[in-house]
């Protein structure tokens, strides 16, 4: 597996400036997806599905066909597209509110059917776009706009570990968790995304990559501190690595 040594905006990314906050991980993840699509040479047959959430404008950033989907429904929309265009590369790009809250049913059943799609699941432990509310992935004691005293297990339950949750489904073939908090992890994230897309080209079935991402504004800290938080707190609850791989 190769990673590019080309340090220049990939073709699959438009020149448009992102509207993301300073230090937001989405920009890095967008670039990685674009690099992977470039390297696989599939830009002209890729169809992306943008979520509702911070990445709602993804269709303005990616340089290939992209559709909008209602909140939480990208896996169903992707299912429709992939079923009628099986030779196209279809992926969803979803946040933790989109995928793990309102869209729980859609992701579980798309995974269980083993849809041959790639899912990019950005976990930044809160709802960024709407102003930093509690997400299903919010850590215990984490203060958010809607958990001002910190998330309590007694009131709001526990952070959902999506990869582990999906791993019991026979339809899932590749589940991995990566982070974009430091250069080494960014490189690892790219390798993992490359595999998740390659799986689709090889018709291996459902692949999901969970990406732990910084949300400095939502977390009320500097981008540097947000990276540190991923290393010291978030990865303790959401450990990095391959959770399931049935592709070999």
């Amino acid at each position, binding site marked *: 597996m190769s990673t590019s040594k080309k340090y220049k905006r990939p073709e699959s990314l438009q020149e448009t400036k992102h509207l993301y906050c300073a230090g937001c991980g989405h920009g890095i993840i967008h670039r990685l997806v674009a690099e992977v699509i470039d390297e696989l040479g599939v830009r002209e047959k890729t169809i992306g599905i943008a979520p509702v959430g911070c990445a709602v404008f993804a269709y303005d950033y990616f340089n290939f066909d992209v559709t909008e989907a209602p909140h939480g429904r990208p896996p169903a929309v992707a299912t429709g597209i992939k079923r009628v265009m099986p030779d196209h590369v279809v992926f969803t790009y979803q946040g933790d509110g989109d995928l793990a809250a309102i869209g729980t049913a859609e992701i579980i059943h798309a995974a269980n059917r083993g849809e041959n799609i790639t899912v990019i699941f950005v976990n930044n432990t809160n709802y960024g776009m709407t102003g930093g509310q509690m997400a299903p992935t919010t850590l215990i004691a984490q203060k958010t706009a809607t958990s001002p005293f910190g998330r309590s297990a007694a009131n709001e339950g526990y952070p959902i570990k999506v990869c582990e949750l999906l791993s019991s489904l026979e339809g899932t073939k590749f589940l991995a968790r990566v982070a974009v908090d430091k250069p080494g992890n960014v490189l690892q994230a790219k390798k993992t995304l490359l595999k998740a897309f390659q799986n689709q080209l090889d018709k291996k079935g459902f692949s999901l990559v969970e990406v732990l991402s910084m949300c400095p504004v939502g977390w009320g800290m500097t*981008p540097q501190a947000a990276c540190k938080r991923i290393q010291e707190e978030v990865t303790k609850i959401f450990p990095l690595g391959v959770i399931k791989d049935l592709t070999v």
Partner: protein
Amino acid sequence: MEPAGKKKPIVIIDAERCKGCELCIVYCARKVLGKTKNINKAGYNPAVVADPDKCTACGFCYLMCPDNAIEIK
């Protein structure tokens, strides 16, 4: 990573794209990049190439930049 070799790497920062998050500065092992008091059109203080001679083209700044504001030639 490529070693500093025959060709001197050039780091280019697009000051108008930069949001001043400083992740490139934080992760630059050789302190090539630095802060400024300049303000771009969007109101951010963009990062600058402070000490270009030290650059080894490790790519860390590019990898960590969320805004595609960095290119290494």
